């Protein structure tokens, strides 16, 4: 059995063949950015960062990370309306990512804990997290830059 692949054109990574199961449909796009079809790209299974790459725009890609790699006590709370809108029912089946703002130095890297991206069954939604203490720009490496230098 052959795995179906889709060709992705990327200004960052060139032409990439991605397996069909890496495709994520966003019915309402990313907030303020739009886009309906993306693919999740990772260098390898253990990558700290993965890329959410548009299948429609070669320039459009955002690095994501698993928030619990950096924020042990991170929580996502959805309003009833939003949970109903996106149809999330099983937290076990839902992958949670946060967008990453990369920067020149590690200490300026941040993640958006306010608007995580939930992916289940090939469908993705960027949602507003109602949990307290979920800033849009949470430093990823605060206090660890000396260790990284």
């Amino acid at each position, binding site marked *: 059995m052959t795995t179906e692949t889709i060709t992705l054109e990327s200004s960052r990574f060139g032409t990439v063949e991605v397996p069909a199961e890496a495709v994520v449909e966003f019915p309402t796009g990313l907030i303020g950015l739009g886009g309906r079809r993306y693919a999740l790209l990772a260098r390898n299974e253990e990558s700290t960062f993965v890329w959410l790459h548009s299948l429609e725009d070669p320039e459009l890609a955002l690095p994501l990370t698993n928030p619990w790699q950096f924020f042990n006590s991170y929580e996502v709370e959805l309003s009833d309306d939003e949970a109903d809108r996106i149809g999330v029912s099983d937290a076990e089946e839902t992958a949670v990512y946060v*967008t990453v*703002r990369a920067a020149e130095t590690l200490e300026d890297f941040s993640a958006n804990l306010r608007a995580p991206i939930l992916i289940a069954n090939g469908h993705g939604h960027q949602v507003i997290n109602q949990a307290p203490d979920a800033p849009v720009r949470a430093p990823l*490496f*605060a206090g*660890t830059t000396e260790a990284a230098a």
Partner: protein
Amino acid sequence: MLIITRRPGEKVMLGDDVVIEVIEVSGSSVRIGIDAPKSIPVYREEIWTAVRDENAAAAKSDANLPEDLPLKT
């Protein structure tokens, strides 16, 4: 911008499917109710703007991200 005067209990239609109702006016605050189809997400503008800006900034990230990073403990 279209500007309409409404009283509490009165509504505005956006197209056929989105209803905005003025619930209550109290001092400098207005409570509004929004009834929209599930396909239309509703955001407070300042949150939408902040998230849009973060998404745009994330999308400017360089292709070369560091690996083997020190994780917060």
